[in-house]
């Protein structure tokens, strides 16, 4: 059976440096944990298919911001062409939690008057002993911004799958309800049935393929 995707969602992963953005993405797209991670350079997008309902697959293109130059025009373009994102902080690093607001503000300043669907992720939840941010306060913060909150660990593969699928489901529902519409010239959501965007089937089945556009 052909593994064709219904939609392609472009997602970003943001948060302070060293919160484990690349590790989370690699765990999700490659199924492994890179213990010693060299700063990611050049590889923009990781792709993976996600099945949200039987037979309904969504292709996720995930942008890793690590190693990117901070030119405003470039960052802006990535934000603008994303429909959703994971906003990461490190539960063992209070500072990274306090910066969550700034990250949201930055995203907002780039995509006005639109918005990005974010999921708040407390990363490194395997390091319970070093925890500096309680689940309660993180949930409260997420609630205040209308986000959901999930705690993950890339090392122990806790909730990684869950975090991405949750976000995908949330976006899918918004696309279904018409709150998010596919626009020509916007790459946040692409429909798999537009002829010139459909990839050949064998390309798509390579789920951990890196797309480098």
């Amino acid at each position: 059976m052909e593994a064709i995707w219904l939609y392609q969602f472009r997602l970003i992963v943001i948060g302070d440096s060293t919160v484990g953005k690349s590790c989370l993405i690699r765990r999700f797209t490659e199924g492994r944990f890179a213990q010693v991670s060299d700063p990611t350079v050049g590889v923009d997008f990781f792709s993976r298919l996600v099945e949200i309902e039987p037979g309904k697959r969504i292709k996720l293109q995930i942008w890793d911001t690590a190693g990117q130059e901070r030119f405003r025009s470039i960052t802006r373009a990535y934000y603008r062409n994303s429909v959703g994102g994971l906003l990461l902080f490190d539960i063992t690093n209070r500072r990274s939690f306090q910066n969550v607001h700034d990250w949201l503000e930055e995203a907002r300043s780039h995509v006005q008057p639109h918005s990005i669907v974010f999921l708040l992720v407390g990363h490194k939840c395997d390091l319970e002993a070093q925890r500096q941010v309680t689940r309660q306060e993180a949930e409260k913060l997420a609630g205040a911004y209308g986000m959901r909150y999930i705690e993950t660990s890339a090392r122990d593969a806790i909730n990684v799958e869950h975090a991405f699928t949750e976000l995908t489901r949330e976006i899918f529902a918004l696309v279904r309800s018409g709150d998010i519409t596919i626009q020509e010239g916007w790459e946040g959501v692409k429909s798999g049935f537009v002829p010139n965007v459909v990839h050949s089937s064998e390309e798509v089945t390579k789920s951990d393929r890196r797309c480098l556009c």
Partner: protein
Amino acid sequence: VFEMVYYLLSNNHVNSIIVHKFDFSDEEIMAYYISFLKTLSLKLNNHTVHFFYNEHTNDFALYTEAIKFFNHPESMVRIAVRTITLNVYKVDNQHMLHYIRDKTAVPYFSNLVWFIGSHVIELDKCVQTDEEHKNRGKLSDLVAEHLDHLHYLNDILIINCEFLNDVLTDHLLNRLFLPLYVYSLVSPETSEERKISPQVSLYLLSQVFLIIHYQPLVNALADVILNGDLSAFSSQTDVHSTHKNMVSAGGVRRFSKPPESLERSLELSRHRGRKRTQKRPNYKNLGEEDDERAGEGGEREKGKEIEMVVMDKSKVSDLTEQNITDEEKTAAATRTHTQRSRPFLDMVYSALDCTSDDYHALFVLCLLYAVSHSRGVNRDLLERLQLPVPGQERSSYSVVLVERLIRIMNQVRLATLELSCLLLKQSVLSGTRCIIKDVHLACLEVKGAPDTNMLTFKLLFLLSFQGEEIFLDMFEDEYRSMTSKPLNVEYLMMDASILLPPTGTPLTGIDFVKRLPCGDVEKTRRAIRVFFMLRALSLQLQGEPETQLPLTRPEDLIKMDDVLDLNNSDLIACMVVSKDGSQAQRFLAVDVYQMSLVEPETKRLGWGVVKFAGLLQDMQVSGVEDDSRALNIIIHKPSSNPHAKPLPILQANFIFADHIRCIIAKQRLAKGRIQARRMKMQRIAALLDLPVQPGATEVLGFGQTANALPSGLPFRFYEQSRRAPNDPTANRSVFASVDKVPGFAVAHCIPQHSPSPLSSPSPPSSGSGSTGRCDSVTASTISAQSPAAPALAPSLTPASQPTISLLTDNLSVESLTLLPPADSPHLHPCAAALSLQRPDASVLEEEDASPTDETDITVKDETTETTELVTPTDEGGEDDFIYLFAHKEKHFSPPEVDSGGTAAEIKAH
């Protein structure tokens, strides 16, 4: 690591991969390829650049191959190209940068500018052909695209590589911004030269000034708009450009397609570089003179070449040649009409006219705001034209602008109004001093009156239909959302929806402040906002602090851990059982605006520590089934978002000793809620110069003293009772009045951190910075008017005013029945009272010439007969307008005048 990279790069394999002709029609190959180039570009620095840039052969494949994709249809490819170029420009290698400028800058920038311009024309077409806002999706994308371009240009400019910036600035000014954007402001609709419509041009220019701050570019641009005439487009002598040595400095400013594609240009350039030919002067073929050009000698040489370029350009098309003469004719014609013509500025000012709508005006306001806030625009230029410079000391302002700003009022969107208030303040406030002329101030007041009137009647309208409940919530909600989300011009200019003609329907999804109101509720919301904005404006112009709004300041409220003197207060003991099952023994105290739960203070008898305090107005009280001693109490957090689900800050069962106490508590709370809301409504009424309901002051026990107080007093809750507990008279009178109202506890609240409140001799005004001035004013007026008046907490005293109200069984506003307040036996229409008291202030009530709804018309009959125009006198100076303002607040007030009578009893619900 470096060694490895060096090894990998040094044998030139990388460059042969870069120039390999891949099949770029394959999306995947394209993606890998451009990503590869980008990865390499991220590694560029002063050392590694030599592996890619060959000085001797003048090759820089990484860069030249990448920029060929600058207009690739896939946006992610374009972004990668931009990243590569920025990474290249930021490497500080003079040889490489000279190469970039001499061999590639003109082809790349001219094509880039053409690409941007084409998007702009597409954007304009999208606006022009729109029907029923159907193009909004596409338009939004095109606007975002334009912003992308501007941010990219700005990123290049802020790398601050001077000679690259010169070329880029020249292209942007002379090939894009001036010919395409600015010229479209004045060219007649039918003209060939008009490429885009003026509103689109204004919008895009605002974006330019908001994003780009590079001085040589934006100053030159601002100079043409604010100061230039049409000669900027026709004559050979260019007075505005600061770049006399630039490509088109001697030539004609025109938005035109580059003569050949970027790829071909680069090829030719490379070819020429090797053979050192001079055939195509279009591409600065000065490779052999690199050394000289690095020094000062290069300038002259460049100038020579430029002339050739211009000549070459003018041969490109006969059609464009024709256009030049047309432009010249137009310019010449304009010059004969006006002596010193500033057609662009004239256009900008005339677009502020809002007689039909504020479609253009909003963009002009944004443009003026952006120009005046730009770091790149010379202050001199703005000052010469007396344009608002934020935070600058000055003694005069642009009369034309201010008058036009003042005229912006009716039927405009809230965003337009907010911006025009902003610019007005910027224009006439010099430091803390206001330099507005009385005549303008008077205009402002006249202008404000119709809207205030409208609000007044909307208020009544609402009262009659929905009751005051919703009005109060709406009033406070609007204030909260307005102050929590002040206008952000940059964000406003990112919204494509304002590019389409203003609309009223919320079905478009357009933000409330960016469209006209729809329906009565929104009209009321709008009227409330207008009121807030004009009030803030007039207060600020007078240099007076806001003492009335918000109706509830958090700092005035009783807070947790406050210690209160509860002697003489009614306290009811109860057990508070919260939702999570936790229990606590507390005393319930009901205050004017709040209910609080206290526990005894151990050190002082009769004092209590507040454990919880919540606003009565947001409280719901209900009985508990099966328990006649218990009440269920919920207090919601006031939210700034009316759509958000109310968040309870207290949700608990209160269990009392017996049924009687429970009933007393319930009554006290219920009554307290009504009273708290009524107090606030009275304060709103006073703010609007609406009379207070009769009997209200009596109910609260202020009947005697309140009459002695002038209106317009600060209503700050608790300000004085907190600070002056040492005044025995004040205390007594507070309690005396409280005693008239059973079940009403007025507590004396002293913040715990205050060291010794009882012995503090400080006058009431000393404590608070923001309200200090007003407090002292209040104190002095009190003592002047009635020396015996005790120093009541002003927040507890609604202004005594004639009373107006609606009969609830008559729902139409026309049937307003006017009744006298209890103490005045005569009956007069309120407008008559106004003119009797202050004929000089009646100008304030002048009706708008075109009332917009039926309520206005009915009022007009009453008011016009008593309205007389007053020319403000010249000699008064600053005092004069303060006088005007002061009396505006008073003109309904003095109760001793036997008029004022507009009232009927309204059943509160």
